[in-house]
């Protein structure tokens, strides 16, 4: 199955993608995926929520406003798309993601039909 891991935190970690891929804890995480035979299909680091734009269409009109979808402490800072056997494996990988130690990782199964 494919799972999207949404990596969320309070944006206290301001490191960009290049810094992150060189960080030892992230390298260790990628190695762990390898070791478990779990495929990392894709992943990105997102710009902070201050750069987010909210878009809605209502009655043919486009409404654009500043800011992320929800005002919460935790914001999506990146995602990883993985392929593994079941939810327990996805939970295992999510728990070992470096951001899980101070933020939250939401695990969502991909809607495959």
């Amino acid at each position, binding site marked *: *199955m494919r*799972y999207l891991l949404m990596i969320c935190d309070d944006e206290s970690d301001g490191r960009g993608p290049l810094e992150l891929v060189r960080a030892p804890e992230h390298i260790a995480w990628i190695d762990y995926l390898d070791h478990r035979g779990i495929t990392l299909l894709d992943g990105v680091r997102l710009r902070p929520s201050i750069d987010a734009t909210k878009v809605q269409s209502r009655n043919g009109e486009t409404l654009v406003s500043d800011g992320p979808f929800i005002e919460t402490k935790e914001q999506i800072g990146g995602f990883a798309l993985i392929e593994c*056997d*079941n*939810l*327990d494996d*996805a*939970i295992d990988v999510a728990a070992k993601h470096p951001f899980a130690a101070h933020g939250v990782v939401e695990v969502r*199964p991909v*809607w495959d039909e």
Partner: protein
Amino acid sequence: MSGPVDQAVAAAFRDSWGQIVATLIGATGDWDLAEESAQDAFTAAMGTWPRRGVPDRPGAWLMSVARNRATDVLRRRALGAAKVREVAVDSREENVEFAGSENIEDEEAVSGVYDDRLRLIFTCCHPALSLEGQVALTLRTLIGLTTAEIARAFLVPEPTMAQRLVRAKRKIRNAGIPFRVPPAPLLAQRTTAVLGVLYLLFNEGYSATSGADLVRSGLSAEALRLARMLSTMMPEDCEVTGLLALMLLHDARRGTRLDGAGDLVTLEEQDRTRWDSGEITEAILILKEAMQLGRPGPYQVQAAIIACHATAEDEAHTDWRQIAALYDRLAELAPSPVVELNRAVAIAMASGPAAGLAIVESIVAAKTLSGYPLLPATRADLLRRMHRLDEAAVHYREALSLATNDGERRFLTRRLRETTTGR
């Protein structure tokens, strides 16, 4: 329909429902199909057994009917030949096995059967499901309570409960929750989750007032059955045994915990002659065996505490030193403000009220139990025993203002009166 056949069907339901559902989920991966096929098998039994007699092995008969139903449905749905073949092959193997092993105690047959129920309970109690969903699913699939019965037991409308079950089953399928006993690294943690669900079920039934709702108080018996099943399947897990012992020790005192007016009777004041000595003996025996293995856990320690009470002739002979030592251990294994409060009471009994009061006052200062009526009630009780009656009255009044039911209020009012008139 004749009485004995009714009883045979009821007994077969109790013994085989969970096993049939678990086996069919294992074979088909389809939870609804498994339940429907099991239901159909029991309907068929009610039609056939009165005419042709109860089969020698009702469980095997029901399993084979349920399997055939599931195979038929899958075939009709034309879900793909592969799946039908898989169930049909399993079914043949099962028949061969049934025919070959006349002795139901045959170890291999039993362990093979148990495996699916163990898989089922771990799947039902997966932490990715809501706790409400876990409880409902366990009762539906392993015990065979109907949606209406579960709804009644949890005091929610039937459509709400139906929705809860649908949602839980959907999540198992969509989120890829595996149907399995978790592998070693996860096992301890997941077992704790299963035990948590069983204890919650037990307490739901235990807290139901006697006679108020039979379905609700029946939950304790179902929880006990599941704990027994689990302890047979996981004999090496001391906490499973600990929980079973704890449930038995509570259950043994079931008839004495409420007085005629429906008020709670404290353990010390319960009529010990009415405790179920059979359950107490069994609990102490299995608890001793578990504790000898040297892997203590919160359930074993809690059971050991109740066992101290259960084996004392009367309140005066209670070994409070031992109980206080066990609460020290419990506070290490599973620290919580409520455990701390109970520890304070035990230490007060073992070493005098002043020692207990010091702990109670530290809980008050930490503000972790604000609004909990037993905190000021305990404080008042210790102060009363130290003859600081004015202070005791203040805290009895505080407890009264927080009390949530009439029984508590009556008890506290009585104590307050004793405090203000007894000097």
